[in-house]
């Protein structure tokens, strides 16, 4: 079982009296790109918060790299290699792009280490747009560039697993395609990715495996090629109407 990187078992999460996550079991293997889809309020973001340690789960376990990390705080998890790109980006808007990136490497000792400097070079290579804007305030960039920066900042922590919550939020179709392609590239280079996404068609197109969350539970799971042909999933998330926007080609 050593190739299971993240293993969530029977996760339960409450906010006061309200149950956000009832019972979610989900595992991500090393090298996989896993998609999680579901309606608003189904419990996707809460699941992410429970897995990353932003909220302490009220039940169940979260194992990362074989160790029990339930209840471990988010910053400790980051230092172990579990990094999240939060919903809505949450950049440090008044700081420059470069500062945002350096802060991403905070737990890796900033830019003092060779590893962080090469990570910086890598993310700039992946998103050349950021290089042009290194000294610009993060908050002054367009939505697409901000999302690139959010991902890049996550990568600066040199994660083993990158969890991305709502990649496509507020982005033009062309940019979504670009970012989806960037994720595919990162995944091919060996990064394990858990993508939580509303644009189910896009997410399933690049993922190996998918989970559907409904009412705080896993409603369906399977290889993404199977899921995207599942009639119920198609009706609920892929739309009855034929999509007129471009869809990235499935991963070969």
């Amino acid at each position, binding site marked *: 079982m050593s190739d299971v990187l993240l293993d969530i078992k029977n996760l339960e999460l409450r906010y006061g009296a309200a149950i956000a996550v009832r019972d979610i079991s989900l595992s991500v293997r090393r090298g996989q790109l896993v998609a999680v889809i579901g309606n608003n309020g189904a419990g996707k973001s809460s699941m992410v918060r429970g897995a990353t340690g932003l909220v302490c789960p009220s039940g169940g376990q979260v194992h990362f790299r074989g160790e029990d990390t339930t209840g471990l705080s988010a910053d400790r998890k980051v230092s172990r290699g579990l990094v999240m790109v939060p*919903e809505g980006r949450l950049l440090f808007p008044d700081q420059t792009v470069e500062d945002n990136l350096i802060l991403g490497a905070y737990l890796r000792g900033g830019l003092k280490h060779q590893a962080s400097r090469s990570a910086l070079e890598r993310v700039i290579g992946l998103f050349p747009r950021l290089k042009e804007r290194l000294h610009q305030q993060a908050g002054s960039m367009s939505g697409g*560039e901000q999302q690139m920066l959010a991902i890049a900042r996550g990568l600066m922590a040199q994660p083993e697993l990158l969890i991305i919550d709502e990649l496509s939020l507020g982005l033009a179709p062309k940019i979504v395609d670009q970012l989806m392609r960037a994720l595919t590239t990162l995944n091919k280079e060996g990064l394990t990715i858990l993508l939580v996404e509303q644009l189910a068609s896009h997410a399933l197109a690049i993922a190996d495996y998918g989970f559907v969350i409904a009412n705080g539970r896993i409603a369906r799971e399977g290889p993404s090629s199977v899921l995207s042909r599942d009639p119920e999933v198609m009706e609920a998330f892929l739309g009855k109407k034929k999509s007129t926007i471009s869809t990235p080609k499935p991963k070969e």
Partner: protein
Amino acid sequence: MRYLIPLGFFAFALILAAVPLMAANEYALRLFMLFLIYGMIAVGLNVLVGLTGLVSLGQAGLFALGSYTGAILATRLGFDIVACCIGAAIVSGAFGVLLAYPTMRVKGVYLAVVTIAFGIIVENVAIEWQSLTGGTTGLSSIPRPNVFGIKLSGFAFYGVLAVTLFVFTLLIQNLKISRYGRTMLAVSQSETASRALGINPTGLRMLAFVVASVTAGIAGTFYAFLNSYISPDIFTFSDSVRFLLMVILGGAGSTFGPVIGAYILTYLPEYLQQFQLWQKFAYGALLLLVMFALPRGILGTFRLAFDRLRPADPIPDVAEGLPVETTLRHKKEMWTAELVASALTVRFGGLSALSNVSLRVKGGEIHALIGPNGAGKSTFVNTISGFYRPDEGRCELDGVELTGRRSLEIARLGLARTFQNTELFGELSVLENVMAGYDQRLSYGLLQALLRTPRMRREESECRRAAIGLLGFVGLSQYGNEAARSLPFGLQRRLEIARALAGKPRLLLLDEPAAGLTTQEIDDLEAMIRRIAGLGISVLLVEHHVDLIMALADTVTVLDYGEVIASDNPAAIQNDPRVIEAYFGTSPERAETAA
């Protein structure tokens, strides 16, 4: 829950009536009267701290102003206590307006510094203006309190103080549950959203400052009469800190919290006298301990614990709601609301975010605005809604010039908007958010709010029913009582739509309403927008979901690099090579075969 507050007032009245009967000696009664005076200050300051979220560390200055005004009027002009109170209220109220003025420019800690400065100035003037204030020796031989020439006995004066504090607490409770309390809370959470809903943040902050000043001023006059002697060293900075502590310790924003806080901080020093040299240490340590154990103040924390235990409030009854048709429909002849933007140019530094953009949203039309990220869509939205000023060009709604008007005026003219990153009033309930959106349609004033007149109640109930109806319209009925911030992101967007609609707009500006929604939810949104347009409200839709735009829009305008590159019907836009190049990325034909 509904009976908790009335029960509290009943208990409060009983205690106030019982104390003089049980007081052991004159000293005990005097100490209690001192508490009543501090209570008045705390209750008034609570409006500022608990509702508008502003901090004042200059209350001792206002207290001193009231005290000196009352004392001078009584000693020099022989006014009775009622006239003195009115004089003090006017003087300190005027200074309250003056103090509110800096809030237009400074916030948070900076504002606290401004109020500290004010307190220092008042203290210094009291010392130096000897001819009026008696300098450091202060003013003595203030006459015993009298009303219309009749001298008040100790017990009668107690009665005056007790009734005043009771009435202040009651009036401020009434203020809190009226449109004023609601919008003050709203302003403290998002000033941007408040302006977009036509709520005037400056006016509300000024009102809060005036309430806090008038109560402190009246309390000051009572203090002068109680003590029959005042001097500058009674009104120091540390007193200001103590008044603020009363509010925070008791629970900012709660009805009785400040009263409890005032009680504790009046009596605590008395009890701690047994520690002698360590008295101040014990005082500080105790405060530290209480605030650590009860982070939201005494009543605030108990309330939170109580809310967790008791069953949830019943969800507002859907049947109570007014149908949106009644709430929103404009008269047929008004269906012309037309937004015309002509040649708008906006520059940031040397950069043109918009250059020469013209756009026309016809009455009852759904007009989509699309373009790559960074094309200037958000700038356009912020410009027509009055958050940015255009460098060139102008825009009008229904023939009324919008350029140069403030965002809140534009909102009142009938332009409502939502925000890309949602700007909800997070701590308010879902229902209260929509009710705050309805505020510009309420017409009752301050006096009616304080007295809860029938008209106020009628308008409030109408506002509530309209809000319930709107929540049903956007499918959030079952979330009515929850805090807005606890809603999932996608539902927060729907709540923003309901809140924007509550003001009965002529034109609704939706900034990426479908972001973060699944296909099914987008279908619901599509139906919702159609119904909104069907009610005669023009819609300007900024969106990335191409399916939604193609299904809904009558006209699509495309922006790229701050310029309009195309404006036409959806079918033509989809085949425009420039739009495909700038926005879609791949040609639609290819995408169809790929999908």
